[in-house]
């Protein structure tokens, strides 16, 4: 995988969120365990990790352990805040015309 490949790669936000969440909750782990935890093939995980590493979200040490950088932690908090801000304030009408539950 070259740097050029990793910049053309269009990631799935869901997978990135999974990686960030797992690293945030479980701390640093090696690539094999991480790929098992996120349910992605090892090769595919490496593609994502390269992409995330290029953007400074994670760092990989000499032993192959992946950990969140400060930017990665901030990204996690941004995602959580975004979800809370946008989804939390939505108000949905819960009742359909045939629903008699509140009568």
């Amino acid at each position, binding site marked *: 995988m070259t740097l050029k490949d990793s910049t053309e790669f269009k990631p799935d936000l869901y997978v990135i969120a999974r990686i960030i969440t797992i690293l945030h909750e479980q701390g640093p782990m090696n690539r094999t365990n991480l790929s098992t935890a996120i349910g992605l093939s090892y090769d595919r995980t490496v593609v994502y990790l390269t992409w995330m590493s290029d953007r400074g979200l994670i760092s990989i040490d000499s032993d192959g352990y992946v950990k969140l950088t400060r930017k990665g932690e901030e990204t996690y908090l941004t995602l959580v805040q975004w979800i809370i801000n946008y*989804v939390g304030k*939505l108000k949905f009408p819960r009742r359909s015309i045939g629903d008699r539950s509140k009568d």
Partner: protein
Amino acid sequence: MSIEDVKARIIEFRDFLINIDRANAIADALPDIAINLLTSIVLLLAVPIIYEVIFVTYYDTFTMTIIGVALSVLTTAYFIYVIVAKILRKIQRAGQDVTGRYAHWDRLLNEGLPGIIAILESINYDELIIKIHRGKLGYVVAVIVYIIISTLIAGFALFGLIFLVILPIFVFPIPTQLLTQYSIPISLTLGFALTMKLAWNRISESIRTLWMIDSITWELRWIEHDLKRLYRI
């Protein structure tokens, strides 16, 4: 607010989408419902006319009573069949399968933050907003059908109660003109008034829901817009 509260909100979102899908299914069933309703209404109007024609051409109190009872029984039976077997079942069945479309949301919600993102990402917002607008039509249809059916049911019940039970106790025989020309309009008017009195809260809540649906489309647009921005993190 925590992620758990957000999960609860996503479940509300799912219920909302299921309702919108159901409303869309009702909109799809609209031609059938309209035909069945119109047939019932035409029949309701035709019965007194048929009775009148028979009354003019062949007058006999005993025969007319039998014909009147037979027509009432047949009309009632047909009316119940159309309302229960055709319209209500169609509305009830409309979108029965939609719940399955969101079954995987439970698994995703258990994943927490990534699952919520996956759910929001999987939504085609343009298509959803079209569905919401179309669902509004279905919702309006459902409210109107609900009022019409309730009026017809209440009207029939009041017809039976007033003209076949209470009135004969005091006036017998009931003047034919009263029974043929005025009984159904009076019953339906009273049925409508009764429906509006009993169901006013539900109807006004449905109207409020329609207003809320409009504001939700704006919120969803913002989510879609900001979700794209998240990719630039």
